[in-house]
């Protein structure tokens, strides 16, 4: 399989604290890699290293044709910022060299109303804000989408909407996906590969590689969890770890 990304022995140390240690994995074209792990496991640190937002040791090599869209977990934007997603999308089109007409495509693809487009970002609900971030990432025609807990600030019906949206976008845009999540149902439903992270890679492989032993190592012995069958499509909250 053609590779979009090769990660070799990546470590991150901040102020003498080792946040990531010797992480190695690949991402093939069209693959959906889901990263799971407890809080503080270095999941966001890994994503930021992939995006070159954090200094790191080791090699992170993107394919020359990789175009990355990033959907962060949260944004510390000023609530009173007089900026709308329309402003941001126009700016992104200009920076990415895309025609303004592209905005019409992405808001249709993501399902954003004109009203949301014209509302200052600080006044949007968590779900609306998240959809805006997804649309922002899609301007520039990415072939890789990096998502950091895309449902963290979304209510439960919204979660399902976001997950089915990611599924749909993956097919429509022919995306490779790297997603951090706490939601095990998403792992079993969507992932082609899984990276279990707890500062180092506890397991890398198919979702079947997540054995009870692996989960115990990731989250501690006391943690109970509920495993879905591979083909089940249950409500996402059932599978939370």
């Amino acid at each position, binding site marked *: 399989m053609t590779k979009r990304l090769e990660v070799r022995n990546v470590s991150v140390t901040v102020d003498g604290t080792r946040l990531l240690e010797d992480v190695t994995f690949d991402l093939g074209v069209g693959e959906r890699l889901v990263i799971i792990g407890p809080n503080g496991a270095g999941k966001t640190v890994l994503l930021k290293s992939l995006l070159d*937002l954090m200094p790191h040791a080791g090699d992170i090599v993107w394919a020359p044709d990789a175009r990355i869209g990033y959907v962060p977990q949260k944004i*510390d934007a000023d609530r009173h910022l007089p900026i709308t997603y329309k402003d941001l999308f126009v700016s992104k089109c200009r920076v990415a060299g895309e025609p303004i007409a592209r905005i019409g495509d992405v808001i249709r693809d993501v399902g954003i109303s004109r009203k949301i487009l014209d509302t200052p970002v600080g006044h949007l609900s968590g779900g609306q804000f998240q959809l805006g971030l997804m649309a922002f990432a899609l301007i520039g025609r990415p072939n890789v989408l990096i998502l950091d807990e895309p449902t963290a600030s979304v209510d439960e019906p919204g979660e399902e909407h976001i997950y089915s949206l990611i599924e749909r976008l993956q097919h429509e845009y022919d995306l490779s996906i790297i997603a951090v999540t706490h939601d095990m149902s998403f792992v079993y439903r969507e992932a082609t590969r899984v990276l279990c992270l707890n500062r180092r890679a506890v397991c890398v492989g198919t979702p079947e590689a997540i054995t009870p032993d692996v989960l115990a190592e990731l989250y501690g012995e006391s943690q109970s969890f509920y495993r879905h069958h591979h083909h089940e499509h249950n409500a996402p909250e059932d599978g939370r770890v």
Partner: protein
Amino acid sequence: MTTTETMSLSLALLTALAAGLIGAFALMKRMSLAGDVISHIALPGLGLALIFDINPIIGAAVALFFGTFLIWQLEKGGKITTDVAVGVMFTAALAVGTLVTPSEDLIEALFGGFQELTTLWFVIGVACVIVIVAFIWYFRHQLIIGLFSPELAATSGINVSRINLYYLMMFSLTVLLGLRFLGALLVGALIIIPAAIGRQLTHTLTAFLAVSSAASVVSVLIGFAINRLYPSLTVGSVKLNLALGPAIISVAAIIFLFSLIRKKI
């Protein structure tokens, strides 16, 4: 009005326009205090230039260059937090600046006032305003994404650190232009107060930038008129000195108060 006065007022109004635009972004970037540091750092430069009989604007420019670099480094993340550094620099620059500025020039250095403006300095000033406005126009998209999220800006291919440096340089240039008639203590206010007015009265980015610039220009115009019509005013036994810089900033502050009331209606 003499030609010099016309040139002085024209340059002041153009500077106000630039200050309104730069200030709107300063407010959105939450760097109002950093702006005060930059303007106050001009004071030691002004003072030293006066001592060594150099053009004070050149002294201020050199000092502002260091101030800009300092704030840029702080923004990139230093060992001390920005608010502590800003708090120290702000007052230290004022103290050192006051010590080194000859006393006969101190009031003007702190509070401004129109000095003679040669045609050459007028042309340089207008060119500086054009550079500032062109910068905002040309880099507006990068600036907008950057103030929403520096991370998203970086992943969109924007060199955030470089844009921040450019922005701070334009900020310093605006301070330098304003120093001549507002002084080191008040020039920061022409950048921040009109932007605060714009924020109170508007909900969209375009309107915010327009109102911020307009409020700045109107403040300078009214302040100038007050200064020309009533250089001093006697109320009872108290004689008020309606100097130019304080008049302009007082007008801006009054408009800001009205904008608060307007917002509540």
